[in-house]
């Protein structure tokens, strides 16, 4: 090294964050502030699953030590918190850090420090840049893929509908719009955007209503689903609603809106009949073996509160991480886990209905969704599971059976290489 400095990484010291009997991973979530409602539940789900795995012997004899910290959905905080995780807590990898603006603040830092940045909790396309950001992997279906599948569904099933878009004014809305326009550009009569944080959406709904749209596709977060429903109700606007997966969580939104019956408003389920997409079995599918597994784990290791789709989301991410860690072998390294994901990522079977797109050339997450309709507190399938990729890629039907979880609830992936 220059100036007589010793070179870095001398000797074969153990990998950061990995000891004989533990692996430390971290994440950042909004646990306080405006974005906390809903999202703060995700890490509690992940934690419950990791606890479950630890109670059952861990991965390669190591327990998973999961640290999550609050960034209040503020990127400057994220940067500090991730510094803390990487430099002070010395985590092995980042698992499921949440948010597009927040996580982009630490993208470079994680990559330049060689920290695996797995399964970002956001559907932005940013996480799929293996050249530039070799350590970062997406997880959920990105918004463009979802938009394409919804667009095609509308094209086929509502060919005459006048479509309005209700969009969050950032990448979420933009990517979704791009996907949808690929199929129904000519049907769209209005695209209204709301600024996240501004809770008055009456002007947007009024504009949609005025445009004559009789089908509205929303790429928005759950609270705005509720707000859009409430606002539409005021002016008796009743189009066919389609909400993206992120905003639809029927259990959450349904329960939120249902309660207004107490103030003698409407019947229980305002969201009844709305269309959305799914890629994970949710709490409403009590018969699904995956849901049963999550319920069991939550009952044993969860904290306060009930199992929710947010918690299932966290558990599913945790499940995927356990798979990756198993694939990385008994002596996991940061490089190793990334390599392993690139090699076997496409074949991983898990709670998701569709496969991941991981490969050396792609760090994109899940490849598709199925379209469903909300009926009461559960959902009815409207389309088979569809998969596709970004850009011009075709939408195809995914026909493989969704495998049930392993007996003991813990995956068993062979180490790579």
């Amino acid at each position, binding site marked *: 090294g220059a100036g007589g*400095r010793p070179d870095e990484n001398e000797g074969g010291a153990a990998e950061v964050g990995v000891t004989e009997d533990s692996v430390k991973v971290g994440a950042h979530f909004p646990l306080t502030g405006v974005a906390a409602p809903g999202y703060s539940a995700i890490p509690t789900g992940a934690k419950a699953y990791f606890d479950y795995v630890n109670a059952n012997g861990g991965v390669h004899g190591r327990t998973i030590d999961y640290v999550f910290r609050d960034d209040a959905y503020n990127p*400057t905080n994220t940067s*500090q918190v991730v510094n803390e995780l990487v430099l002070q807590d010395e985590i092995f990898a980042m698992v499921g850090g949440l948010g597009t*603006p*927040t996580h982009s*603040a630490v993208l470079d830092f994680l990559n330049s420090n060689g920290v695996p940045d797995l399964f970002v909790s956001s559907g932005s396309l940013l996480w799929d840049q293996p050249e530039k950001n070799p350590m970062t992997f997406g997880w959920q279906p990105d918004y463009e893929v979802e938009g394409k599948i919804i667009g095609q569904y509308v094209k086929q099933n509502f060919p005459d509908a006048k479509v309005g878009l209700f969009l969050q*004014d950032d990448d979420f809305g933009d990517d979704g719009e791009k996907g949808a326009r690929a199929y129904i550009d000519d049907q769209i009569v209005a695209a209204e955007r709301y600024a996240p944080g501004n809770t008055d959406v009456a002007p947007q709904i009024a504009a949609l209503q005025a445009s004559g749209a009789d089908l509205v596709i929303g790429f928005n977060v759950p609270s705005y689903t509720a707000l859009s429903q409430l606002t539409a109700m005021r002016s008796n606007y009743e189009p066919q609603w389609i909400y993206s997966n992120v905003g639809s969580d029927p259990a959450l939104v349904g329960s939120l809106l249902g309660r207004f019956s107490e103030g003698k408003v409407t019947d229980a389920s305002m969201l009844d009949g709305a269309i959305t997409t799914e890629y994970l079995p949710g709490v409403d599918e009590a018969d699904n073996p995956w849901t049963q597994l999550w319920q069991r784990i939550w009952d044993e290791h969860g904290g*306060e509160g009930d199992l929710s789709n947010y918690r299932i989301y966290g558990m599913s991410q945790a499940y995927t991480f356990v798979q990756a860690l198993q694939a990385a072998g008994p002596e996991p390294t940061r490089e190793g886990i990334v390599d392993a994901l690139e090699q076997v990522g496409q074949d991983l079977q898990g709670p998701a209905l569709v496969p991941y797109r991981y490969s050396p050339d792609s760090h994109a997450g899940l490849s598709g969704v199925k379209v469903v309709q909300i009926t009461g507190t559960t959902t009815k399938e409207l389309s088979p599971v569809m998969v596709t990729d970004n850009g011009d890629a075709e939408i195809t039907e995914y026909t493989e059976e969704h495998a049930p979880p392993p007996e003991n609830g813990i995956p068993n992936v062979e180490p790579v290489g």
Partner: protein
Amino acid sequence: MSAPTAAARRFLPSSVFGRNLLTVLVALVAVVLVLELTSPFRNSQLATMSYYAIAAVGLTVLTGLNGQISLGHGALMAVGAYTTGLLLENEAMPFPVAMLAAMVVTAVAGIVVGAAAARLHGPYLAGATLALAVGVPGIAIYFDGLLGGEQGLRISSPTPPDWFADAMYFLTAGEMTSARYLAYIGWGTLLLVVLLLANLIAGRYGRIWRAVRDDEIAAELAGVRLGRMRVLAFVVSAACAGLAGAVLAMVVRLAAPSGFTIVLSLALLTAVVVGGLGSLGGALLGSALLVFLPPAVTDIGTDLGMSGVQAAQLAPFVYGVVLVVVMLAAPGGVMGIVRRLRHAGRRARGRGGPSRPAAGKQGVGATDQGGRG
């Protein structure tokens, strides 16, 4: 009534600049020691503290010395951060140039804001600057093509040049990590800013600003151009905020609207007041509190066995309580306590310094000219 010249000389300055420079040099040595001896994580915390502190010292000049409250300094930091972001894109420019540009652009913004604010007082000024804090990030969303919308601008922070790393290694045998380098940039800037502000405060401008704060009419009668001095204070303060924004952009590696919410502006104000209004040292203390207290509290919460979510809520709770308690127990802020202790010490030694009256209400209502002080 003739003045003994010896007494006169006692009040002549013995090179203010020399004294300030010496203090800052000593501080510089301390900074090098601290940065070299602490972990990369502490380095990064200190880097964070540096940008809070740069903005806070600027704000304390505006609010403490000139009596103009600003709830919108976060917005000015945003101007600095975005300027830096645009200039550092594709590493088009060496970072000191970008910082300088950020400072200048923000100072110009400060002229505009300051001119609008010059006629406002008390809650009206608070309201206008609050609206500024909330409104300005909207610009970034509106011009999302240029400014990256909600996602903001990603910024590649400067890497330590070899000569610097080698020089520091030669001096301290410490490795130059990126976090440490950023902390050096931040603290270097901070010390420079503090030196210059200390010069200003000790001289004519500090005096005039305080005079304007205490009694506008009397100041005007003494020939002070109120509007100009108030705008100047705003510009100086904005320039600091611009530099702070530039450091923030490099340390956080991002300039995004959600980084410049009203919370940031309010945090700066609390830092300034809790530290001790009008005092540069107080602003530093307040910034330290801002950076070091919340994580410490979260850790304590976790140690006490609280769930992660609850431990996270504990931090703002304790922070809020600390603000309240400090204001109740030490209305002059931390520096107020220090001053009182020093004063008591001096009196104990029997010298009896000048006593400072308790600061009065600022700018509320008309002053009753018919009365006596």
